[in-house]
């Protein structure tokens, strides 16, 4: 007897009898004898519910929740209580892909609303139902560009987060596509270098805004020369910042992609998060992933369905442009609820509060004389500095005060070894920021 199995001994006997067999093992008589297990797995014994609670509480206590002053793809924004209340409803949490639209309008409708919100934030025509994360959505955007342009090479700006670059490279390498880098200058993508590298083989050009250094790049002139070259412009952006910054569409993007973690998702030790992907309507049939569309039922009621499925792997099989068969649906619900709660004002305010806090911190750190800015470019909530202090010293001193911040970018590669990262969201209070400054001021 066990709580997740309903069968009693009598039930089992009744079922075996109906099948005319003596033992459940008879059902497995086609399995090769030589590989049938003759003992239990070598794994731990079961735990009762209260034992589990204590076990994981103890494990959890081996972790330390820190005040977060670094970002790099995972930001500590506030999560309205409403999100957990709604996303934990079993109707949303335990259902599967909406294959039967008659009993899945809840899921389908929030996907439609999610797509609408990504549409208005990016300014693009159409968003899909979501991808695994920002790195894979960017890699799939590159595949999409290659399929649309029937060309094999992607240009990647050096100012992308190295995690994103790594994932793009892995995807391209195995697919048999090529890539090259656009060098950076003073912390931003170098337009001259882009011009030099654009040639007939280039299917797409990928940039990130705000970039790996937190800098808001100026893309004036980019989309024109990319379009002149018949390549596609792919812009990766932290979606939260599009509440205030120029939209991907306004910057001339053909494909918009990136991470949505900043819209209501806890940092969760790296996942689950969600990647968005949006494009022009003329490219929709080359877009990976699910798409939800509006329709009617046979009585004329509003309805939502998965549509344009003839693009996807379950129909196209080896001819599909992508192998993705799910979305991060529940995380799309996080995004939809978050953006419903924040609305147009709230999202602007979040960005403004983050802007104010990060600029206050930035100015104060520069004032200490121990930090300098190698780039001096506009930023929003995240920035990098050089420092005369040892990176380890900073790390240790902050950790003693339960702070994670001033993250050394050295672990991302030698070229970044002098840089440290700070991020400030609306959650960071003035006293937290002042405390951080005081600790760093005291170091030498």
């Amino acid at each position: 007897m066990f709580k997740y199995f309903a069968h009693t001994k009598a039930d089992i006997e009744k079922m075996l009898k109906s099948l005319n067999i003596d033992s459940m093992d008879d059902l497995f008589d086609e399995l090769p004898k030589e590989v049938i297990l003759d003992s239990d797995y070598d794994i731990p014994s079961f735990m009762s519910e209260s034992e589990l609670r204590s076990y994981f509480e103890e494990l959890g206590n081996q972790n330390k929740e820190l005040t977060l002053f670094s970002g790099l793809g995972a930001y500590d924004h506030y999560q309205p209580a409403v999100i957990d209340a709604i996303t934990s409803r079993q109707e949303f949490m335990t259902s599967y892909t909406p294959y039967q639209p008659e009993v899945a309008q809840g899921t389908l409708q929030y996907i439609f609303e999610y797509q609408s919100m990504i549409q208005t934030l990016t300014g693009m025509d159409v968003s899909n139902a979501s991808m695994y994360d920002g790195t894979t959505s960017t890699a799939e955007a590159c595949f999409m560009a290659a399929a649309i342009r029937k060309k094999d090479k992607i240009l990647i700006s050096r100012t992308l987060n190295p995690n994103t670059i790594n994932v793009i490279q892995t995807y391209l390498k195995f697919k048999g596509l090529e890539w090259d880098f656009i060098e950076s200058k003073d912390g931003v993508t170098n337009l001259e270098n882009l011009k030099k590298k654009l040639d007939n083989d280039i299917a797409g050009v990928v940039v990130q805004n705000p970039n790996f250094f937190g800098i808001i790049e100026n893309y004036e002139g980019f989309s024109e020369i990319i379009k002149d070259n018949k390549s596609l412009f792919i812009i990766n952006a932290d979606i939260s910042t599009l509440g205030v910054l120029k939209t991907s569409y306004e910057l001339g993007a053909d494909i918009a992609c990136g991470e949505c973690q900043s819209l209501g998702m806890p940092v969760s030790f790296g996942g689950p998060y969600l990647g968005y992907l949006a494009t022009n309507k003329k490219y929709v049939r080359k877009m990976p992933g699910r798409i939800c569309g509006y329709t009617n039922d046979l009585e004329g009621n509003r309805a939502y369905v998965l549509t344009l499925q003839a693009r996807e792997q379950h129909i196209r099989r080896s001819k599909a442009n992508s192998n993705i068969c799910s979305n991060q649906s529940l995380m799309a619900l996080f995004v939809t609820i978050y953006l419903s709660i924040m609305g147009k004002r709230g999202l602007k305010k979040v960005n403004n509060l983050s802007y104010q806090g990060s600029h206050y911190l930035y100015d104060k750190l520069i004032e200490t004389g121990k930090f300098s800015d190698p780039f001096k470019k506009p930023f929003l909530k995240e920035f990098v500095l050089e420092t005369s202090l040892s990176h380890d010293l900073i790390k240790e001193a902050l950790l003693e005060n339960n702070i994670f911040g001033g993250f050394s970018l050295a672990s991302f590669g030698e070229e970044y070894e002098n840089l440290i990262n700070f991020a400030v969201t609306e959650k960071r209070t003035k006293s937290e920021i002042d405390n951080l400054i005081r600790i760093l001021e005291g170091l030498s």
Partner: protein
Amino acid sequence: MSKILKDLYYSDDHEWVKVLENDVVLIGITDFAQSELGDVVFVDLPEEGDELVQGNEFGAVESVKAASDLIAPISGEIIEVNEELAAEPEKVNQEPYEAWFLKVKLNDSKELDNLLDHKAYKEEISE
């Protein structure tokens, strides 16, 4: 029972070819093909000026639950694309032999000999 017209050429891939004059032909899909696909929602076609090569893929027809590649029945240069199908793909279901996809100038009219006549095509689809 699918409709088959007598004066057309047919391919194994369920496309028809109609000779208009000398070396100019129209290409579409057969009644059998449209009924197998169901409601056509999109026809993906190449552009005017593109070249077709007999046996190569040149586009796709999409219904709600299926997608079928279009295989060029003949080689030649595309001189016109039926733009109406973009707005009214249902024409492919309603009048498969009127709803032509491409008007093509043949490279070599001998290639027509590789295609089936209506009798052979009838046999093909009754198999």
